[in-house]
Structure formats: C-alpha cells, structure tokens
C-alpha cells in the first residue's frame, strides 16, 4: 500500500565551488517533485545554492562487513603520504 512514492537521497552544495554533501532523504513520485520537496525541506534558510536528488535505489554502497578486505590494499602504502619523504631542513616547507 506504499503511496508515499519512492525514497530519494538529497545532496546540497552550500556555495558554488564547494562539494555536494548528503543532507538527508525524502519521498517523491518523480524527479521534479523530488527537487521541489528537497528545496522546501532542506533549504528553508539558504543552506544551499544547488541541489542533487538521486533515487535511493540507484546508490551502490560498500558493505561494513567488507570494511577490512575492501580498504586494506591502501593501508600498507605509506609512501602515498607526503610525510613518508625526507626533505632537507634547509628547504623549509614543501
């Protein structure tokens, strides 16, 4: 008897140039309604200048159970970080 429409995830950009950040979700029957609902629900006080709405079921997410094996390959690669490298003191900040 679901008559609230499918769930959409809402992403807001606070100011031009900033990344879009997930701010919550809502129900709507189509993308126009999702966008208008997102505006009414999540930007009542100028919280954003641009909105993305995405059907929840279109989002592919990693599983917490796979956390170890999934992210492990990057954990032992300390040489990807700048602090791995020795720079002479005379050079100062680099």
């Amino acid at each position, binding site marked *: 008897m679901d008559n609230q429409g499918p*769930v959409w995830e809402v992403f807001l950009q606070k100011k031009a140039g900033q990344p879009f950040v997930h701010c*919550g979700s809502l129900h709507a029957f189509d993308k126009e309604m999702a966008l208008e609902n997102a505006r009414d629900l999540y930007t009542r006080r100028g919280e954003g200048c641009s909105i993305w709405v995405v059907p929840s079921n279109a989002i592919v997410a990693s599983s*917490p159970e796979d956390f170890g094996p999934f992210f492990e390959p990057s954990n032992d690669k300390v040489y990807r970080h700048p602090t791995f490298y020795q720079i002479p003191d005379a050079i100062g900040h680099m």
Partner: protein
Amino acid sequence: MEINKFEDVFEGKLAKNEMIEPKDWMPENYRKHLIRQISQHAHSEIIGMLPEGNWITRAPSLRAKVVLLAKVQDEGGHGLYLYTAAETLGVTRDELLNNLHTGKAKYSSIFNYPTLTWADIGAVGWLVDGAAIMNQVMLQRSSYGPYSRAMVRICKEESFHQRQGYEIMTHLAFGTNDQKEMAQDALNRWWYPTMMMFGPPDSESPNSENAVKWRIKRETNDQLRQRFVDQTVRQVEYLGLTVPDAHLKWNEAKNGYDFTEPNWVEFKNIISGNGPCNKERLAARNKAHDEGKWVREAAQVFAKKRSEVYEAA
C-alpha cells in the same frame, strides 16, 4: 561471523564512541528501540503542528502570523527528517503513518493539551520547545548516525522557536495587567505538562536503561528534568511571573532546585489516550491524511504517465 563476534564489534564501537550506521550489524532490540523512539519523535513533531496551527488565523499581528507559519512549517520538516531516519532501519513510511493514525504509536503527551489563549503560543515556544531542545541537544550525540544527523539539523532550527516564544511572553508579561495575567495563566497550565516531556522518573522508566546503555540517550529523564528547572526559573523570574510550585526551592548542596514532580497519574492517563485533546488530535491528523489521498494518487498517476511519455520519446 557468528552472532557473538558481530555483537563484539557493535559493543566495541559503542565503547569507542563510534557511530552505528544503517548497514552495520546491530542487535534486534537496538533496532526496535530506535524505530520506536525515532518514530515517536517524528509523530510528536507532526502532531505538534496542531496546537500551534490552531492560532495561525488568529495571530495578533502580521509579524506574529508569518513567524508562527514558519515555525509550524519547521515542525513539519522535523517530522520528515525523523521519518526518513527511522526508515533507514527497515520500516516503511506507510507503516509508520499507519501506526500513528490507528493510535498504535505514541507521541509526546504535551500535544494533548489545548492552546487556549495567545499566551499559550508563547508558553509552548518558550517551555515546550525549550524542553525539546534540552532533549535534542543530548540526542545530537546519539549512537545512531542518521538520528544524530537529523538532530543536528533540528537543533539549528529550534533555537528560533524558543526565542520567538519567550519574546511573546515578554510582550505579555510587561504589558497590561490583563496581559500579564494571561501570561501567568499560560505558565500555570504548561509548567507541569512540560516537565512530563522528559518522561517518567528514572526509577519507573522501562526504556531508559537500554537507551543509556546503547548511547541512544546520554542522560536520564531525571537529569534532563533537573537541568530544565534550573535553567528556566531565572527566565520566569525575569518576566516577573511565578512558577506554580509552592515547594520550589534552591538547594545549595545539590546546586540545583528542589521541585514538585508532575502528576504521574495524569501523565499515564494522557499517554494511554485520555488527555483533554487526544481524540481531537488523532481525528485532525486522520482527516488531513484522508483528504490528501487524492493528491497522492494523482501525483502517482501523473508521474507514471510522464515516465511513459519519456520512454516513448
């Protein structure tokens, strides 16, 4: 992994103050507790629109009217944030609404009291939203991610609610004698119901222990109630009004006020459906939902039709 192992991971996260997210393993009782607490919270926001909505057409000025409209709209928004947080736990919006409409789910006892005068709108914003903020500030650090995030957003918006309420009270308390009397009358009627909002005493609160253990709540009902009284008395005194409690007294030793507990028999009566406005509130909610049925149906059909046009093109 066996259940024990999952449980260790879950307990480990709580011990380290880490958040639990929707896809994480969680004990069934934790999930159930959250669904109950978050949906009750959502229902309270939605039902909470009614006592204040009652005064929108009779607000004493255009300024007061736009403020009240904005506040009631916020409450609706808060309900929606919370419903979607509850839905991340695997319950549908329809189930949640159905539980509210059939009276199966509870909402805050406070909204079963009537708003009789304009001063009640001041008292509701000041006291009821004040008490809600105290609870919600704590819930910002709740262990369940989506609930905590909804609370952060809500707390940012609530501050305006309490301030507009207190502003109404100052206008009345420093106005004519009749207005001051009206303010005192509102305080008299809302003081104890507001204290009930924190829930029954810790010794009789069936859900409190787990909620604290799981870090869903960080403080107990009694702790929050004490803080509310300590914070509010000064605000009452500023208005030149009197707390309707003959036993209210500063206790130096505990660095807080001693006060009279609300009438817990009345509280139980109200949460079991027998308060002054329970029937009226549920009837109004059901009416709004039923009368919106054709809109939902039309939107559904329209969306379907339009997607067919897209596909055909």
